[in-house]
């Protein structure tokens, strides 16, 4: 078993994993310092006959120092996170050339509508596939999440992407895979009886492979 984060397969994975390890280091140091101090104080200052505790009410200077250090640390982490958040979920973060798709969640399946060969949604060559997400590698994809009944959550662990699909809302989420292969979509928001098996398969193709698949399916859709 991999004891840290599993391998990532999208552009977001790099950013999120890096931030995760930064926070792990910062909190790890804080953890070790405080817990070691705690245990050390408990041993060092255990009750011993004839030794009286020091009557001591505190030290303002020490408090000012650790308050400002903590505040500075969390603010820096906050600002670092703000940039990443804006690049991943910000309103204007979706690249202009992203392939538009619609991911419609319902109990308990994912219906994915592709734009067809023209890469435009709302045209005749659009087609819909259940529980199968096909995307090309190294190309941004912009998914519009909708939901039919309850709230679902579109979660692809390998891509480090998660976004709730809320009935009555159209929510944009984009991603750019960096590795070809097979991955899984999971539902991360309790959505009812079949929540635990509301999964989908992700296939990341090479660009040529995707184009072939896309044209094929688009023509099938036109033929109907």
């Amino acid at each position: 078993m991999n004891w840290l984060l599993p391998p990532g397969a999208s552009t977001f994975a790099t950013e999120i994993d890096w931030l995760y390890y930064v926070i792990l280091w910062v909190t790890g140091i804080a953890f070790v310092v405080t817990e070691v101090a705690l245990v050390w104080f408990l041993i060092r200052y255990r009750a011993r006959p004839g030794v009286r505790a020091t009557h001591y009410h505190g030290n303002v200077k020490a408090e000012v120092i650790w308050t400002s250090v903590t505040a500075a640390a969390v603010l820096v982490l906050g600002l670092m996170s703000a940039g990443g958040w804006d690049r991943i979920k910000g309103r204007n973060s979706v690249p202009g050339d992203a392939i538009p798709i619609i991911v419609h969640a319902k109990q308990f399946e994912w219906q994915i509508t592709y734009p067809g060969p023209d890469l435009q949604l709302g045209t005749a060559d659009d087609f819909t596939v259940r529980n199968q997400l096909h995307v090309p590698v190294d190309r941004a994809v912009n998914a519009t999440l909708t939901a039919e009944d309850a709230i679902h959550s579109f979660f692809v662990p390998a891509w480090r992407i998660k976004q709730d699909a809320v009935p009555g809302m159209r929510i944009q989420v984009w991603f750019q895979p960096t590795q070809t292969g097979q991955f899984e979509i999971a539902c991360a928001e309790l959505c009812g009886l079949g929540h635990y098996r509301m999964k989908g398969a992700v296939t990341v193709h090479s660009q040529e492979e995707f184009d072939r698949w896309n044209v094929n399916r688009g023509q099938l859709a036109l033929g109907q």
Partner: protein
Amino acid sequence: MPTIKSSVAGHASATGEAHTHEMSFLRKYIFSTDHKIIGIQFLIMSLVFLLAGGVLAMVIRWQLGFPGQAMPGGGVLPDTMAPDGIVLPEFYNALVTMHGTFMVFFAIMPLLVGVFGNYLIPLKIGAPDMAFPRINMASFWIAVPAGIMMIAGFVVEGGHAAAGWTSYAPLSERADLSGVSMGQILWCISLIILGLSSILGSFNYITTVINLRAPGMHWFRLPLSIWALFVTAILVLLAMPILSGAIIMLLFDQTIGTHFFGPAQGGQPLLWQHLFWFFGHPEVYILILPAMGFASDIIANGSRKPVFGYASMVFAILAIAVLGWGVWGHHMFMSGMNPTLGTSFMISTMLIAVPSAIKVFNWLGTIWLGSVRFHTPMLHAVAFVSMFIIGGLSGIFMASTPVDIYIHDTYFIVAHLHYVLFGGSLFAIFAAITYWYPKMFGRMMNPFWAKAHFVLTFVAYNFVFFPMHQLGLQGHMRRIFDPNEYEFLQHLQGLNTFISISAFVLFAAQFIFAINFIASWFVGEKAPDNPWDDNGLEWTVPSPPPHGNFATIPRVYRGPYEYSSPLVQEDFLPQNRELPPQPAGSAAHT
């Protein structure tokens, strides 16, 4: 020195006339207006719910550790839950929902606020009783039907509420989506009633703390436990009605066809989440602030040393309470909320880490240069601090919005919340119960078995919840009936089984506590008035204290943490002990 008969001093307290004459058993122990009896009633009720919530957790852990296998003893469950002892997914959803609901609303919250708020506030501030004893009694007897209703949900048609303890709409409001109708309605009504009970309790606490402090007990001489309970009561008072209002709308959506949260006619599912978490985040602090207060009291006592930075401890409590109203959106980063709003919530969430960190450093500072006595309450209190450090630090991961994208709704969250709620609140509750048990029942708990319970709980607890961080990092979602459905989670089965076995040990260890609790009540060693050499006013009266608490309203001369003071021979100095006047300048700290 003023001498005021307690029976008349609190003319506003309706107990006045009840002091002298004998009361029937019913008035004395069942429909009692005595805050101590009410506190003990809440204690028994919430410990029963703690056990029930624990049983539900064991069933959950059985399913995750041994998916699809017949649960030992599960055969007694009806076929709608677990045919032949094999847990059904619909029952599983009800289990996670009710485990959360029981623990948050019926176990931890009443244990902290209902039990110790009631028991400690009048005793520690030097009042004969609450400001409104009859409303206090009503607050308990309103909570009872709420609890019964919440349990009844398991036996109604369609099973119990299964939309999570957060009851996100529209799943919670449409029976056709969740398969549950009556259970969800009972859930709603029960929580509305419980909310009323909490509000009645908290406005009583607030009034009592403001108006009935003994002479000399000015604000900066209040024990930190009372500060914490006071601020918590304010949070309950202002947050609970938001939940009640939201649940009323949810109930109307289910029953009379309104459209608040269903999108069909313009309702907003996100509105439910905003209202729920606008209540829910103050609720998180409701569940931890009193625990922090108890830990402060007990750590100062165990270290025989004044609390380090009393004033900053108070300001940290106030800062948490104020900032706590501006961070609720961090539960909703993945909900489709306005991303700009997400950024502001992230920054406010990061900032609220600061007062929590101040508290941790001050606890460490309290132990530093102390003379530590390792009595059971101290062990639990120290465990509280060390587990709260983990829970607090793991919170930073999810406060960071990009990292939260990945770990949101995974077991990382489950690990974090249990480190705060179990490692934090529950260890502090064990500390408080073992600390004030002698005062409540007049007998000591058996120290050996109390320590055995502590050690087993502490070890098993970490074996249960620490590996959950790892589950979460591998992407293991919350609230899933069977992770083996997913290929990327199949390699985690071994870890899940390990966690489950540890959980069974953890559960079994609680029976040591239960037996010790019950047995000590009858056969425990008689407790002295002040077994822990504490300075608080409650330790100056007999164990258990008589009706009306104090023979005369005490006069307070100093803060509650004057341990190892150079002014006296002993290493403690009760708040109400009058010392001969000191030469000017020598008694700087009071």
